[in-house]
């Protein structure tokens, strides 16, 4: 009885349509109308410009610590744009571009990063979960949403975002396994940006790709050039259509790069070289998409100024935010506030009354001595 292969079908594809030199594989070029291409580029540019502005706002102490997305615009917009409004989007903490696409107001995001929980509240009816910070823990939520959609007979698809570091967490594997067993409509989008804070991918996994991890769970996995918005779009559309048709989940690995810091409290010069960053800057997703649109004569004049003006107006609205009412912290702990919490609320109210002052000023500059997970104070 010789050994014989029982599962010989494994293969992992890499998809690239528009490379960093602007070469296009016309046979694979997705059929997207001009206005869609322009909307995608505008969203990527808006995310980039907002990200840069937010870093300045953080340095000025006007917002707190946040995770910049610079470099990952194609991975986010190319995927999220394949969803319908009735589909679900489940972010981790670096999905500002995807959130903007899904309709989150810029000033809400700014409020959120300035410490106002109100800013993280999805609008009524909006099918997005709020930012989730513990790595990979949102993946089972996405699978549960997809189960519920299927249970109710809705044709909604769920798309969940996470990074390369998340693939080492148990929740990633449990979520993939449950999704495979249940055959539910979920699309796992891994933004492999090469670095989980200071830990490079080669220390994160011995697998050659992240996409291949899908195969162990009986799902299709595909690797795409995550800086090629056309490739991300093509793979995502295929995955979303497969999910909606009842043909189950997909793992998409977007190979991209975090051009900026892990968060504004991180100093990447401690762990990676300038040469590496410059090499990836040459693969910038916006540059190559702009060149593609330029050849099609679809680049709009004055777009950058328009986007900057939109950001400036939102920043002005954000700055007009009133002080946070401390008493509101008790509002959403339970559906009905229990007696001990009512007593604690009364205690705070009395303390505020006794102080006689208006509630504390909003958005105090973040204390750099209090880093979030894995962050340390920048030496700069």
């Amino acid at each position, binding site marked *: 009885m010789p050994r014989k292969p029982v599962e010989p079908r494994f293969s992992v594809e890499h998809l690239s349509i528009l490379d960093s030199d602007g070469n296009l594989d016309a046979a694979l070029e997705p059929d997207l109308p001009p206005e869609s291409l322009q909307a995608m580029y505008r969203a990527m540019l808006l995310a980039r410009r907002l990200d840069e502005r937010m870093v300045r706002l953080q340095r000025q102490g006007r917002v707190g610590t946040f995770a910049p997305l610079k470099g990952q615009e194609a991975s986010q917009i190319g995927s999220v744009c394949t969803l319908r409004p009735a589909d679900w989007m489940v972010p981790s903490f670096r999905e500002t571009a995807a959130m903007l696409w899904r309709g989150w107001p810029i000033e809400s995001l700014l409020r959120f990063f300035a410490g106002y929980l109100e800013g993280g*509240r999805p609008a009524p009816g909006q099918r997005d979960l*709020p930012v989730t910070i513990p790595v990979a*823990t949102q993946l*089972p939520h996405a699978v549960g949403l997809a189960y519920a959609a299927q249970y109710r007979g809705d044709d909604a698809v769920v798309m969940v975002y996470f990074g390369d570091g998340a693939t080492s967490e148990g929740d990633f594997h449990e979520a993939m396994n449950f999704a495979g067993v249940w055959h539910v409509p979920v699309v796992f989008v891994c933004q492999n940006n090469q670095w989980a804070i200071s830990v490079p991918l080669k220390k994160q996994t011995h697998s050659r790709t992240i996409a291949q991890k899908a195969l162990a769970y009986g799902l299709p996995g595909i690797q795409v050039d995550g800086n090629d918005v056309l490739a991300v779009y093509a793979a995502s559309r295929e995955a979303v259509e497969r999910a909606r048709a009842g043909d189950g989940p997909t793992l998409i690995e977007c190979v991209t790069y975090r051009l900026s810091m892990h968060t504004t409290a991180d100093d990447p010069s401690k762990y990676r070289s300038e040469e590496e960053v410059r090499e990836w800057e040459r693969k910038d997703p916006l540059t190559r998409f702009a060149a593609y649109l330029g050849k099609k004569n679809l680049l709009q004049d004055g777009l950058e100024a328009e986007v900057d003006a939109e950001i400036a107006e939102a920043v002005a609205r954000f700055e007009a935010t009133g002080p946070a009412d401390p008493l509101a912290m008790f509002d959403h702990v339970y*559906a009905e506030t*229990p007696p001990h919490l009512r007593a604690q609320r009364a205690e705070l109210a009395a303390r505020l009354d006794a102080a006689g002052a208006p509630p504390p000023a909003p958005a105090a500059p973040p204390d750099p001595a209090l880093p979030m997970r894995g962050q340390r104070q920048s030496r700069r």
Partner: protein
Amino acid sequence: MSRLTMVKALNLALREEMERDPDVLIIGEDVGVDGGVFRVTDDLHRTFGGRRVIDSPLAEAAIVGTSVGMALYGLKPVCEIQFSGFAFQCFHQIENHAARYRNRSQGRFHCQMVIRMPYGGGVRALEHHTESEEQFYAHIPGLKIVVPSGPRTARALLVSAIRDPDPVVFFEAKALYHAAREEVPEESEALPIGRAQVVREGRDLTLIAWGAMVRVAREAAETLEQEDGARCEVIDLLTVSPLDREALVASVRKTGRAVVVHEAPRSFGPGAEIAASIMEGAFLSLEAPIGRVTAYDVSFAGFARERATVPDAARLVAAARETLAF
């Protein structure tokens, strides 16, 4: 009325709520075809099918994590964690998410879900199968911790837990599963969460217990009445969090003395919060320090030594006598 064990009473509550509300579903390890290792979900798979009574893969974090997702969609999952000792593998999903979603989303989402878990000793079992962990959950804002003390309260509280818009961790004392039968009304019955019950009136001493310790407290109260002529009031907490401080304070204002009994280790256990709450609300009525009869601060004793650490009536009687004589 029929006389049911706690297992059958819990099964009745699940069946009733599933019949009443198509959004209620069950998920856990072996809960389907097998009916759960303690048979709490017996026969529900046959009635409601595998889509509603889900035999999940063996992964606590994803059982709770996917249930969070289902709850965010509007379903009302009831998760079964096979033994409370295994719930640390889903603790992050409970603490980071189930308990926090209402606050994080500022009321846009909430997790109406129940996490059932058998706890406690008395079943001659191995490590991780006999511990008592309500204190870990009671410390978490946004959660409710419910511990029934017998068939009738189990049925009525599980119904309430399933209908409660907030996540409920529902502890079931394994020692009570088949311990006794009790009359359970045919018609649906619900008990309010967050309210303790005075199960024996008295004026000399308040004994505070929940779950399997309620029968220990009742037995101790009986002994103290017969042998000492002391009349003990027994409070069955039923909900550990939010704690019914009003009921505790009202009783101690009357009796002036209290002893708390719990299976969890003593340090930083529920007894400490209960004692502090009584002190805050009834300090001038207190005639003696509040006693605590608990398991010792050891991680696991093994069932050969279990009776030396899990409180019994004799130990509670001795502690009560000290408190009465103070």
